[in-house]
């Protein structure tokens, strides 16, 4: 392994126990966000100054300027396609033009899972990228590879302003006090519904359900009135358990959702989790909800084909939805978009999406160049362009002042809903979301459990089995990584 990696390793371990100076900085300057409220402060024993100093020292600040090779060539491995890819290319070209000392090359790995698989392969030998776009839930795995430079180091070394980051976005990617990656593409699950179907069922199309109970009532009315066959098409998504637990204030994993210390077990099996599973089971049993597969957009087609009146999916699908609806193939569908209903009204949601990791061990100049590009992408003006072109939600609040985004949101106000949702509600540890090394494995177990529910399995025993599967997945990973 390159010498620079071993240089970082012992220090990262020390940092892991540090306080959250960075977050406190952000909390003090940003308006309205309640960072730290409801958060169990981790230890806080080590003095912030020491931690800050040692972190900043890791950033190869100034390496690009000192480098003899200009421009510094770096690669970004991403998984964007179609419209998102076009916007990324536009932004990259803009960066390359305005930064003569750095040249970014884009490499498209087409999917999150392909990107991660290929990245893991490089750890055994092979050319590494300088910047990788990684799915949110894979961050603990990336951290465990010990091949990344925590972006916090460079934020501090360069004294950059991070106060306008969306609080839950930056909190999500801050693990045990250290921000390892920069939020890049963000979305949130929202409720999509057919206003025409609501009207037909005698429901107010401008009053979509806010709680799971209301959702059930509305679904019942839709089915009874014959407006549609099902009230809601429920895509088999591990999000259900994650988001609804967070919205009710329940932790998903132990040790502060894996943010105080490494998560060693799940905690979603408590009262809230049981309620959620009883609700799902009830909806399935009473045929108010139809289950659709976890990949693809069968659930959206179910609404478009008037099989169901509602569905839940990522806000990032809005672009595709507008395209499909605009084609005229699905007349008399009136699209409604609403915040995600939950166990209680107005509970905070967990952010979703992907972040950019700076890969260490390449060269100081390339590390700094990679950070520069990633940080630039996250800045207000760029995030405004990114959001407007993709339908993702900006990760910095300052983006909302940019005309390009304001115009996009005026033309299509539905695009705002996920953004307002991710800004509303407290920045609790529950809402920051779980940090689990093998989150993919846990999600597979959750998907299987929800499939069982739709097959008629009893919610209590399903939840019990799920908890034990998830725990064995976690302990398996922990034993392999330590």
């Amino acid at each position, binding site marked *: 392994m390159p010498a620079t990696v071993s240089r970082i390793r012992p220090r990262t371990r020390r940092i892991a126990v540090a306080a959250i100076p960075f977050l406190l900085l952000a909390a003090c300057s940003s308006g309205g966000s309640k960072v730290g409220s409801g958060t169990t402060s981790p230890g806080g024993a080590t003095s912030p100054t020491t931690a800050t100093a040692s972190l900043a020292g890791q950033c190869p600040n100034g390496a690009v300027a000192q480098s003899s090779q200009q421009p510094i060539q770096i690669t970004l491995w991403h998984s964007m396609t179609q419209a998102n890819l076009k916007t990324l290319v536009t932004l990259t070209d803009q960066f390359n033009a305005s930064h003569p000392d750095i040249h970014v090359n884009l490499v498209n790995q087409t999917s999150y899972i*392909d990107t991660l698989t*290929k990245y893991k*392969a490089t750890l*055994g*030998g092979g050319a590494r990228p300088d910047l990788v776009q990684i799915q949110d839930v894979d961050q603990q795995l990336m951290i465990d590879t010990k091949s990344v430079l925590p972006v916090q180091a460079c934020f501090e070394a360069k004294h950059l302003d991070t106060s306008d980051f969306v609080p839950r976005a930056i909190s999500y990617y801050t693990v045990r006090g250290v921000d390892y990656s920069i939020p890049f593409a963000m979305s949130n699950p929202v409720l999509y519904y057919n206003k025409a179907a609501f009207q037909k069922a005698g429901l107010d199309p401008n009053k979509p359900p806010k709680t799971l109970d209301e959702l059930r009532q509305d679904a019942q009315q839709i089915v009874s009135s014959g407006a549609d066959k099902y009230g809601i098409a429920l895509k088999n998504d591990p999000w259900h358990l994650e988001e609804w637990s967070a919205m009710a204030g329940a932790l998903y994993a132990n040790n502060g959702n894996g943010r105080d210390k490494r998560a060693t077990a799940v905690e979603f099996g408590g009262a809230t989790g049981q309620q959620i599973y009883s609700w799902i089971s009830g909806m399935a049993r009473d045929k108010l909800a139809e289950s659709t597969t976890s990949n693809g957009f069968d659930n959206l087609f179910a609404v478009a084909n008037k099989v169901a009146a509602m569905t839940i999916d990522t806000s990032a699908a809005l672009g595709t939805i507008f395209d499909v609806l605009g084609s005229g193939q699905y007349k008399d569908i009136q699209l409604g978009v609403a915040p995600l209903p939950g166990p209680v009204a107005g509970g905070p949601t967990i952010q979703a999406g992907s972040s950019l990791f700076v890969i260490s061990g390449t060269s100081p100049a390339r590390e700094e160049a990679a950070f520069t590009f990633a940080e630039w992408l996250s800045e207000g003006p760029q995030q405004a362009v990114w959001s407007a072109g993709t339908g993702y939600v900006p990760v910095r609040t300052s983006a909302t002042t940019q005309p390009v985004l304001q115009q996009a949101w005026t033309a299509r106000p539905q695009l705002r809903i996920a953004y307002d949702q991710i800004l509303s509600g407290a920045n609790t540890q529950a809402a920051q979301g779980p940090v689990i090394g093998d989150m993919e494995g846990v999600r597979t177990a959750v998907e299987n459990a929800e499939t069982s529910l739709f097959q008629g399995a009893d919610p209590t025993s399903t939840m019990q089995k799920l908890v034990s599967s998830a725990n064995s997945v976690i302990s398996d990973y922990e034993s392999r990584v330590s």
Partner: protein
Amino acid sequence: MPARKRRATAVRAVHYGVLVLLAAVVLFPIYITVVNSLLTPEAIGHRPPSLFPTHPHGSGYVSAFRSGHLAIYLRNSILVAVAITVGQLVTSVLAGYAFALLRFPFRNALFVVFLATLMVPYEATIITNTHTVTNFGWINKYPALIVPFLATGLGTFLLRQAFLGVPRELHDAARLDGYGHWRFLTRVAVPLARPAVAALAVFSFLGAWNQYLWPLLVTNTDRVRTVQIGLRQLEGTSIQQINVTFAGTVIAAFPIFLLLVLFQKQLVRGLTAGAVKG
């Protein structure tokens, strides 16, 4: 007399009926695939379904070749299958000849070793082999797809059988004529064993063409992807382009179909080698 004739006719009718039924079961998926490959996606989704292409469209095939990259995949499959076939023929002929007609210490034990490879399922070796191939730097290159399969225990067994059938007299006569082993092998033995060689060739080609898991593991770029993995990519195609998927399967199956038609005898011999007595 008429009663027996009537029964015979009835039996024959039932016989034909069952044959037709079975033929329908076998042929139906293939028929639907070919038909749908020539329809537009809207026509495919039409209910009741159209079972005959009244207005055949070639667009599925065009898309399959272009955006579906099937031309590249076909090229790769052909290249790899031919290379493996040639390799297996060479190693099997050489080893089969050695085991049949050459004498060397531990010959029988070594032959058992060759046969032992038939007892090892691919699962027992695939994990390590991917590591080996990665270490050689062959990932996403043709050697990864070809080299591990250049030798075969079954091929050696078959050729040994064939060479054992070469009459002793021929061998002695050739020796008297001053034929070395190499000349005997190439000028006499191989031509005599031509049926076995042809059968092995067809069998090897078929096996190499149909490989699935190994190409999946050692390739992840279109440049070296084979047609079977290409189908896997195609399967993910949206419902809006199902005719492309169907066209892709026709394209992937067509070369083997051609093989079946042209080399039916050799194919049968290859498939039944060792199975049927006599």
